[in-house]
């Protein structure tokens, strides 16, 4: 892995004439966790897709990329859907990237990574035989195998139950430390636990908020973390689009 670059996105995006987001200025510091928090439909995922060069049909007007050169080939992606291929076993899924690039897969390293995410002994299982938490661990192992300096996370924990989610947050924070991580989430608790930089995205634009003290992942019961979490929720609730729900 090369050094983790800083990312930037300055501009606006439209899709067939409809505005996806107005002028935003997003800066993602290298080598740390940045959480982009916002309600559904605000354009958070579009920002991730723009970084991953997967935003088909989106007209982006502005500048986007890494501060130290082109971003292509340095990004890994993990989404809410684990995207495991049902016809491959866990090992096949984890080594998918190598085969897709025409390289020889490295099963020894894959087994190592599986051990790291707590899936030792599961390499020959099919995804359909795994629980939701195990599937997301396999997706994390696949992401780690890619060994990219930039990791884009699109609500990867939102489909998990509370206990599994807390464990996955910790495991992901540990295993991805040192990389530039951009996490898109709608969960204030997740942003408060994992963000070294927390950005709230609403109709009015982006707002940079001071993160809680302490290294990530922060304990769920930490007083400062809970205070920031409450504050983030308050900001989301004051948002114009959410206002009718609170009155």
């Amino acid at each position: 892995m090369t050094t983790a670059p800083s990312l930037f996105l300055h501009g606006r995006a439209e899709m067939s004439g409809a505005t996806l987001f107005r002028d935003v200025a997003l800066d993602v510091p290298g080598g740390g966790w940045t959480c982009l928090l916002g309600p559904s439909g605000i354009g958070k995922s579009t920002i991730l897709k723009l970084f991953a060069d997967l935003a088909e049909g989106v007209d982006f007007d502005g500048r986007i990329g890494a501060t130290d050169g082109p971003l292509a080939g340095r990004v890994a992606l993990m989404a809410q859907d684990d995207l495991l291929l049902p016809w491959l076993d866990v090992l096949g899924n984890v080594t998918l990237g190598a085969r897709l690039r025409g390289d020889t897969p490295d099963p020894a390293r894959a087994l190592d990574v599986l051990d790291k995410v707590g899936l030792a002994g599961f390499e020959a299982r099919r995804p359909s035989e795994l629980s939701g938490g195990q599937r997301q661990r396999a997706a994390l192992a696949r992401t780690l195998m890619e060994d990219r300096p930039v990791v884009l996370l699109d609500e990867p924990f939102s489909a998990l139950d509370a206990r599994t989610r807390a464990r996955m947050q910790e495991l992901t924070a540990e295993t991805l430390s040192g990389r530039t991580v951009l996490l898109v989430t709608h969960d204030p608790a997740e942003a408060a636990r994992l963000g070294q930089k927390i950005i709230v995205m609403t109709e009015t634009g982006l707002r940079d908020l001071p993160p809680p003290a302490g290294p990530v992942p922060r304990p769920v019961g930490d007083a400062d973390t809970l205070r920031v979490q409450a504050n983030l929720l308050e900001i989301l609730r004051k948002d114009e689009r959410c206002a009718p729900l609170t009155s």
Partner: protein
Amino acid sequence: MSNARTILASALFGLLLWQGVVWATDLPRFILPGPGLVAQTLWESRALIAEHSLITIAEVLIGLALGAVLGGLSAIGLASSSIARQLVRPLLVFSQAIPVFALAPILTLWFGYGLGSKVAMALIIIYFPVTSSFFDALMRPNKDWVGLARVMGASPARIMWHIRIPAALPGLASGLRLAAVYAPIGAIIGEWVGASKGLGYLMLLANGRAKTDLMFAALIVLAIFTVLLHAGVGKAANRLLERR
């Protein structure tokens, strides 16, 4: 097991219905033979029917294999290239407007009275269902899988091979199941137009000589073969899907 019992009960019911019609209408044997007579003919002419059956089975199996390969490759080719789609797809749709049966005489002219023209007929009749069901599945990949593969640095060809083709195999399997039913139709039409062997030829021959019982016997053998072929292709397809 209950499945086998249901099939048996259903077959028995069909035979009873048939026998009932024979009794009720009291038609002469050369118009409508009863199941008993047909079974007797089937047994007595078993060598003759077997000889002709083997020919038809060979035609169908070769046509099916060629159709699966050609249809599969065509679908992959069409799904890989938008130029191919623009050039070839209108032709494919147009070709479906031509009644396949009308082609039988010319196929006999081109490929002769033997195996070739019947294999060609079976191939032509199954080519479109195989191609189109596989092609449709290839064109509807999970976009997120493809996106993930692109982020991983995959070329379109590798995305096709590692993601789109395995994901589309259920579409190919349903096309092949259809093909298993259509292929015998093609072979029989081919035999009707010009042949000296095969179940279709035997049926025409028997019909012309008012040996309706022999015609029915040949028909039943053909129907049973088609049902078995359909079941066999279904099983093979399921195994393929498990092992992909």
